[in-house]
């Protein structure tokens, strides 16, 4: 059976893989959007935090024998704590000055993190086993889908929607949103804005780490896994519009699918299609698809 001249197996298979990639784009751009929306910092270190989450899972298994499910809990906590420390010691000095410094600082942090892990682990990558519960594959007829990848799509959807819900629909989210618009006023109401900001960065870091643990069994864990991804995530965020959390989730998923489609019909272009779309969107809607012009 063929679709546009391509066997349906190949088509749906690539689409499914695209959906998996899209889940990662969504999770990471969500974290980036949360941090930027609430802190005004473009967190270039997001890729490095994702990478650290994967390594925490690896080290936890390798040295402490903590399995995947434990790592899902542990990695976000550990990396989140690191995020809190970063915010308290370094980032808080930068809120009042030009946001490019935040970008540059987090860029520097990403380099440090990558360098340290490169020194320890080399560049060639570690593998992480798929947890027993999720091993094996389901034969869907048109392709063999490893169960683990189905789990990744599910888990990231739950996490993304959960985060969106917390920020847009709960009281805590309301405080967060208010806190960024007018910290002085919110502080006057008795809410501890600096602590809130600190925890927000930590939560963003934790989200990135969670994505890292989810990614660990699929790809080689290397120190560079974050930096390759972060630039695409930047493009996703620009396309989706920084102001909107739902925007980044939807854009991330959509772009993953589009990338998968491109791999079927025109594989050479698959690595640049995201950027081409970004250029087009910027020509038509400079604020991004869901963005609010600030």
């Amino acid at each position, binding site marked *: 059976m063929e679709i546009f001249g391509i066997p349906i197996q190949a088509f749906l298979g690539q689409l499914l893989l695209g959906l998996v990639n899209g889940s990662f784009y969504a999770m990471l751009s969500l974290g980036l959007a949360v941090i930027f929306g609430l802190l005004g910092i*473009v967190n270039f270190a997001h890729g490095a935090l994702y990478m650290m989450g994967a390594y925490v899972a690896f080290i936890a298994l390798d040295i402490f024998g903590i399995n995947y499910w434990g790592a899902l809990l542990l990695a976000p906590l550990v990396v989140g704590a690191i995020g809190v420390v970063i915010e308290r010691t*370094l980032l808080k*000095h*930068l809120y009042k000055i*030009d*946001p*490019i*410094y935040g*970008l*540059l*600082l987090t*860029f*520097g*942090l*990403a*380099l*440090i*993190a*990558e*360098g*340290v892990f*490169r*020194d320890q682990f080399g560049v060639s990558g570690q593998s992480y086993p798929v947890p027993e519960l999720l091993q094996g594959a389901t034969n869907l007829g048109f392709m063999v889908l490893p169960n683990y990848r189905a789990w990744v799509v599910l888990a990231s959807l739950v996490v993304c929607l959960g985060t969106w819900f917390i920020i847009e629909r709960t009281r805590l989210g309301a405080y967060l949103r208010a806190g960024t618009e007018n910290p002085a006023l919110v502080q006057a109401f008795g809410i501890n804005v600096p602590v809130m900001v600190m925890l927000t960065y930590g939560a963003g870091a934790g989200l990135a780490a969670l994505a890292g643990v989810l990614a660990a069994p699929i790809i080689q864990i290397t120190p560079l896994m974050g*930096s390759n991804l972060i*630039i*695409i995530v*930047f*493009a996703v*965020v*620009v396309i989706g519009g*920084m102001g909107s959390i739902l925007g980044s989730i939807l854009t991330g998923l959509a772009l993953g699918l589009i990338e998968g489609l491109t791999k079927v019909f025109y594989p*050479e272009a698959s*690595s*640049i299609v*995201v*950027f*081409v779309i*970004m*250029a087009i969107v*910027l*020509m038509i809607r*400079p604020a991004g698809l869901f963005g609010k012009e600030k």
Partner: protein
Amino acid sequence: MGTPSAFDISKRSRIAWGLGLAVLLAAPFIGLYPVFMMKALCYAIFACAFNLLLGYTGLLSFGHAAYLGAAAYATGWLVRSAGWSPELGVLAGTLLAGVLGLGVGLIAIRRQGIYFAMVTLAMAQMIYFVFLQAPFTGGEDGLQGVPRGKLFGIISLANDTVLYYVVLAVFVAVFLCIIRIVHSPYGQVLKAIRENEPRAISLGYDVDRYKLLAFVLSTTLAGLAGSMKTLVLGFATLSDAHWSLSGEVVLMTLLGGMGTFAGPVLGAFTIIGLQNFLADQVGAWINVIIGAIFVICVVAFRRGFIGELLAWQQRRQAKEDRK
């Protein structure tokens, strides 16, 4: 980004600049490895070009390596495979970088501040992937074996020392060109845009046109750096267009001093020197060191070497004036 602003060129300072120039002129004879010096000078050109955009116009282009890489590949291919003479190859590469800058600029100018930086980064990444795929670049292997040829058909550039002086001449020309641009009326408008864009708009300036022109100038000169580098080293590879180089040029400018003339040069020599000297000793830690310098610069050393120096001088001057 309030560094003390550019100074005028008085007669005494011309003598002072001569001091630095003297060292550079004497370099091959005082035991400095010419290939290293040439490489550092090319990256100094790159950093000065970048500084024009960041220090003097206030625009952070986070994907500037794309233009260096584009020119590097263009010159490499033209000189090696199309048999062009080196000066024409360099010219072509430089112009290509400018055209590329125009294209990216037209898209990126629509956004400001931090978005501008992200867009430039994303566009640069796209250009990187195009280079990865394009057959003429040689992909991962790079474009190798670029001959140095004969300048204007008569002066052979095969000798390291001869080429060194050619590179030095180009560097000095670029340096003077940037000084000229900064001091011109156009440069004053750029400064106004950097300091208060809304006010510049309200004064009636077509801010986007000015910014675009600065962007194109900057990318053109960055291309010149790339073209020269290809002649010096004999190859153009993906590293020339990689985002890590884009980050390094920011660091060179920041470390040396944004918005100063000597700053980027100092920063370039420092970073290239560090990489050359330390890379073998410390291996992967070189990235940690570079990252740490970034962090320290942003948190505590925003004005960079020259900027801090000038600020200190101004404080001393102010103290003396008060007496």
